[in-house]
């Protein structure tokens, strides 16, 4: 293809006016976007945190009922925990953590595994 041919096309294209954007697009583009943080407020964060706490607690209660013990029954809980720590069969309770105290020994369930603190 010789150069003059595409030069002619170039000249022709230079004469074409570009299509103008529609008015509704102009309106959309020139609408001030919401300021950062508009959709993320402290009350919303507090409500979300409260919801998580309630959900975690109800999950724990459900667990405690299934295991047939409760927070007031520290003796049974401690024995159960100690037995399971000794036999290394403590299950992984991931969604909550709590602490049970008996005498000087502290048994803790937390994170992905349990520790027996002296």
């Amino acid at each position, binding site marked *: 293809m010789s150069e003059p041919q*595409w030069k002619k096309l170039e000249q022709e294209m230079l004469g074409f006016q570009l299509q103008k*954007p529609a008015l509704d697009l*102009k309106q959309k583009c*020139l609408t001030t976007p919401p300021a950062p943080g508009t959709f993320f407020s402290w009350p919303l964060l507090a409500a979300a945190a409260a919801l998580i706490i309630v959900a975690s607690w109800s999950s724990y209660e459900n667990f405690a009922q299934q295991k047939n013990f409760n927070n007031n029954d520290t003796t049974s809980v401690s024995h159960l925990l100690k037995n399971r720590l000794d036999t290394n069969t403590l299950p992984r309770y991931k969604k909550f953590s709590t602490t049970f105290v008996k005498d000087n020994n502290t048994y803790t369930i937390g994170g992905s595994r349990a520790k027996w603190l002296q």
Partner: protein
Amino acid sequence: MAKSTKELWMENVFDDFGGLILNYIKTIVGDAHQAEDVMQNVFIKLWKTEIETLSNVKAYVITAARNEALTYIRKRNKTHLRPIAKECQLFSREENTLRKMCIEEALLELPQEQREIVFLKIYAQLTFQKIADTLNIPLNTASSRYRYAMEKLSQILGEKNHE
């Protein structure tokens, strides 16, 4: 209510470069509707831009439009969304409509990197040096790519005329 400096600046940018930005995005994404979505994203970015720091507004908006369009294409490829419209109108259709439609169609048949260089040279009226800077390619590549693109465009239009 009186408009702020930023609002006035945005309006000027739209009036001066709106057509250029929209049609440049169309040449990259190859779809008129998707180009409008990308254009809105470009303006959201511009709202967040510190206008005092800009020395060359035209170069800035062209680069912003290109980055946004390429990001859109990457996302589109991941989601298997493809250009919808076969026809992507770039030129106003007041006269010589058929010829313009042929050229638009031929332009969209070029590879993306060739059609955007044609657009930047002819409609953004950038020098090859500016094009090279914008596309982050060597100067010689910019000029040769433009020549190949125009040759191919002539060839496609020639074939179309013989059909």
